[in-house]
């Protein structure tokens, strides 16, 4: 691991299936992400971007290699450790927004805070602040089905920021948005990363989005070709 890296990926390999049906999603991938850096993970569909993000976020385990987030070696964590990692250190933004449909925007944002057991007044204050941050203070009581795609993704970003994670992992956050909205969302991510001083890895294949990142890491057929 490079000294001072927020995220360090070393020799990671991930294969799905076995034998003749084996799919090598990632092969010997290594890269680092500096603290406060916004890295775009670039590649075509099926190149291994999502697999890489899932491994970094502790949603999946590599077959080989090591991943470190801050001073925590993710690949060495047990199930409880991974839960703690996802709860306290890493936050996700999904391509499909990942909101709980039966909850309002405010309740969705409050989910991570509930997982931490934050007192109700503190939670409500934090939720209000985050919704104001993403410009949805007036939509707090609306459910996801009552919000547009961009609004949903902004709620997802607010939720991701709720517990002030050190690492934001966003998987194609603009994939289901039109260009204009996608740019706005990407700009929001850029802004909050700078404002909160967090590190972010964002997967995308949109060149416009890539331009907003500090740098790009390119995956081709599961191999890192440009870091």
């Amino acid at each position, binding site marked *: 691991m490079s000294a001072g890296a927020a995220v360090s990926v070393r020799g990671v390999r991930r294969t799905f299936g076995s034998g003749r049906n084996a799919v090598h999603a990632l092969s010997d991938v290594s890269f680092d992400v500096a603290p406060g850096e916004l890295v775009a993970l670039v590649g075509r569909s099926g190149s291994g971007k999502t697999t890489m993000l*899932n491994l970094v976020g502790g949603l999946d385990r590599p077959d080989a290699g090591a991943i470190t987030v801050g001073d925590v070696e993710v690949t060495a964590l047990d199930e409880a450790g991974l839960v703690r990692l996802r709860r306290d250190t890493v936050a996700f933004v999904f391509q499909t927004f990942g909101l709980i*449909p039966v909850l309002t925007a405010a309740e969705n944002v409050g989910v991570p805070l*509930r*997982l931490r057991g934050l007192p109700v007044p503190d*939670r409500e204050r934090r939720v209000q602040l985050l919704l104001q941050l993403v410009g949805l203070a007036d939509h707090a009581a609306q459910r996801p089905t009552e919000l547009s795609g961009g609004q949903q993704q902004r709620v997802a970003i607010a939720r991701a920021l709720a517990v002030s994670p050190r690492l934001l992992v966003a998987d194609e956050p603009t994939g289901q948005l039109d260009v204009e909205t996608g740019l706005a969302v990407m700009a929001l991510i850029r802004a909050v990363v700078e404002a909160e001083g967090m590190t972010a890895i964002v997967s995308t294949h949109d060149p416009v989005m890539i331009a907003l990142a500090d740098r790009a890491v390119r995956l081709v057929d599961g191999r890192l070709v440009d870091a």
Partner: protein
Amino acid sequence: MAMVTALVVAGATVLGLCSLLLTTVRDQALVAAVRGTDPASVQVVAAVTLADDATAADAAARALAEVSDTTQTALAAFPTTTSVWATSTRLLLDPAPDGGLRQTYLLDGDDVAAHATLTAGRWPTSGAAAVTEVALPDSAARLLGVASGSTISLTGAPQHAGEPPADPRTVLVVGTFTPRRGDQAWTRDPLDAAGYATYALGAALPAYGPLVVAPGTLVGHQPVARFSVVLTPVLSGATTSRIATAERDLGGLRRALDERLGERASGVALANPYPETLQQVRAQLGVTASVVLVAALLAGALAGTALGLAARLLADRRAAEHTLLVARGAASRQLAAHAAAEALVLALVAAALSIPLSLAAFRALARIPRLARAGMDAAAAAPTAVLVATVGGAALGLSGVLVVVSLRSRGTRGRAWRHGLVARSGVDLVLVALAVLGYLQLRAHRVALGAAVDPVLVAAPVLCLAAGAVLALRVLPWVARLAEVHAARSSRLVLPLAAWELARRRHSTAGAFLLVLATATTTFGLTFVATWERSQADQADAQVGAQLQVDPGAVAPIAEGRALGAATGGSPMAVTQRSISLGSLIGADTSGHATQLLATDLRAGHGFEVGRPPAGTTWAAATAGLATVDPAGPLLPAGPLRLVLTGDTADGTPVVATPSLVVEDPWGGQAVLDGGPVPLDGAPHELRIATGPDAVPLPDRLRLVALDLGLALGDGAAPSPDANQTSVVTVRTVLLGATAGSGSSDWFGSTSTDPWQIARGAQATEAGDPAGVGVTASATVSLTGLLYESGRLVVVAGSPVADVPVVVTAGLADELGAQPGGRLSLTVGQSQLDGRITGVVPYLPSIVAPRGVLADRTTLDRALLGAGDLSPLTDRWWVSGLADPRAAAAAVTAGGLGAPQTRDAVAAQLRDGPLRMAILAATWLLVAAAALLALWGTAAHVVASIGARAVEVARLLGLGMSRAAVGAALLVQHGGVCLLAVGTGALLGGVVVRLVVPLLVVSSTGAPPVPDVLVVWPWPALAVAVTLLALGSVALAAPVASAAVRRASATHLRMEGQP
């Protein structure tokens, strides 16, 4: 698809089994009921009185043969035993000592000996004896002064005016007998076994008889006036076809007899109870069928609901396939055709499986001992057209649910869902309206109307449960809202998340409907069975007043109580139960029931515990105040009764007194003992009293309760016929060896009931005597009246009864507008008594009529004796305190003490009889099916609802929620729904039980039961069932939730679209 198929099979199997209960079991029950019917109760009796010109021996024999042939042909479906009794034309006896004409008749019966007890000599034979041998009743023998070995001279009475009497002849008395008391065979005797009547045989002459001759010596040899043919069917080999054949043939018997006899018969009386008995059996089967149909409809509703849930699971699983088909241009019609074809195949497969499964389930049910004992025969399980039609229809109907769900699932969620909500609201309202209408109809008519099954009445319970479940579902979200409010205030996630899901997810309570309905049905079924069984026991208690009820047999009344006590080991109690008139309320009510009087010992502590007491009170409280007097009178010594009579008249007119003693045993049995005439000449005359016609020795502890002195003028008395000459008659009766009784030693004179008022101002006193107890009776006697009519001086032990306190039934009170404190005029026999109402009760034990009157036996007896009525009051016996009523009943039968009936046997017949077995079977089946279908359907719902949340589970895991916490949230949500649904279902079941079960539990004829239904809550069974449903339904979610959490992976996060 396997789950859907299994549900269709299960539903069709349950309904197929119900069809077997309605058809095969119905036939079995009919056969078992007919086989179990007392053959005597369906005897065909054809009693023919021949026209005067058809009594000749040959003609009568021909008529008899034709009647026998016609009746046997009508009952040819069954083997029969035939009994023929024929009586001769009138015969004249030698004139009485006073010169009066007397008549008699011969009786030729092939089974007379089976209906009588020989008391002396032997039965006549048709041997080579020169004279005809006869046997006659003891009573007739005593009155005629003949005994075995005596001869009786007979002359054929002229049949027509001016006709000379037939040749005289002599018959030889070879035996005497006592007809069995209560034996219906003696109704064929012109004198009804009395042995004597002042007017009979169509002539105003005293008649004595019958003179029983040897079988076969009358018919064909001598003129016959009347004969009766009794056919008793052997029902042990009854089959459905034989039963129907006999019913059809017997229906035309009356007409056939009339046609064959023509003018030869002056009267034909036909007792043909078989069709009516069958009608009653069918009415009971109709009641049973109604209850079975209720169970079948409920099972069908549950199966349909469970299948709906499973179909939704299938539709969800096929959503992608369906979308693809639509995208590739499949038309709605094509999709509907595809769904229909699939449903048809499913129906065929399910039907093919359900038919053998129904038969197997039937065999399993039939092996349950209680049902097997009732006559349910496993061997009778065979495919029938009804079974095939029912199973096929059920499978098709249930498969149709699949089509409906499949088609409905295509609609878009927005507008279609809102439209569905509105439509559902409409359906809800219609369902509730139908339930209300059904309930009102049920309340008006109860579940069964005899043999016919009313679909509205049968559907009412199902509608009530379904409407209740629908309404309950409307309430569940409100409960969830409360949880939601609590969730907002919580700092945790698991419980709030469950509450949110419950309150806000559209299908979260879809499975609740099934659970609510199934739990309500289970509660309903279990409570119905318990209530129904309790009601049958209550009805048995109401029909039979004690553990054992005995209708008197051949034993002399004075010994019956003792004999019953010795034979049964219990405590006998004499009971009066007979029809009476109340003032102007004479005859039967609209239901054919006359007012019934019930009287027994109601003194406190004498155990009038006769089944369930009226609500809110006890029998002791309800009957308090009815026993206003205690037994009184001196106690007589055991053995022969001797007494000394000393009497005189104030003016010395010779008068003869003939004493009759009314004695009562400790059990309430009474008898009248007659003494011989004694001249009242001032001298003491000792008498030995005969103890009844059978000369039974007097038992100890007999009490003299009344003394009746018949008065007549003695030799040489010549009172003035023109002026009413009176004289005070005083008679002192010393009962030798008697002791004073424990009660009052007061006596009073009865009011004179004879129109001449011969004895007036009767009074009496009791005093000790060195030889026993003396009773001195006196009255002012009209000597002139004695010229024309014998007089009676009746004195009664104890104090007089001014009025008889009574408790009346609510039905009678309503009819009369009477209430406690009101008065009644009771006509008991020929006596009129004043009654005072002290209470009103819903029913009286052993009285099925709406009009019933209960009185204390001693009080009633005292009042009747005070009115000069000495008729015995013992109509039947109740025996209580029995360890083994069945053994006691057997002992009563073996001892010839009468016809026993045990309360347990009646209850068992009502509860477990063949006509009822399908009720139990169907209800047990319903409870089992409800539990099975509920769990099955819930499993389908759980799989569908949790499976649909796979993406959400993955998101929660991605947010940092542990797998355990996600699993717990799923379980809490599902468990909350299940527990709420089960609790609501139990509550709904309770409400429907309260409203509906009392209307479903009816008597064997479908009428409201007596006493009213008392809802019985089988708490342990309900607790077990509800707990099993709650835990079972919650437990079903555990593996599904666990699997959902285990399978959730990052892959789900890439799934497109919102769940």
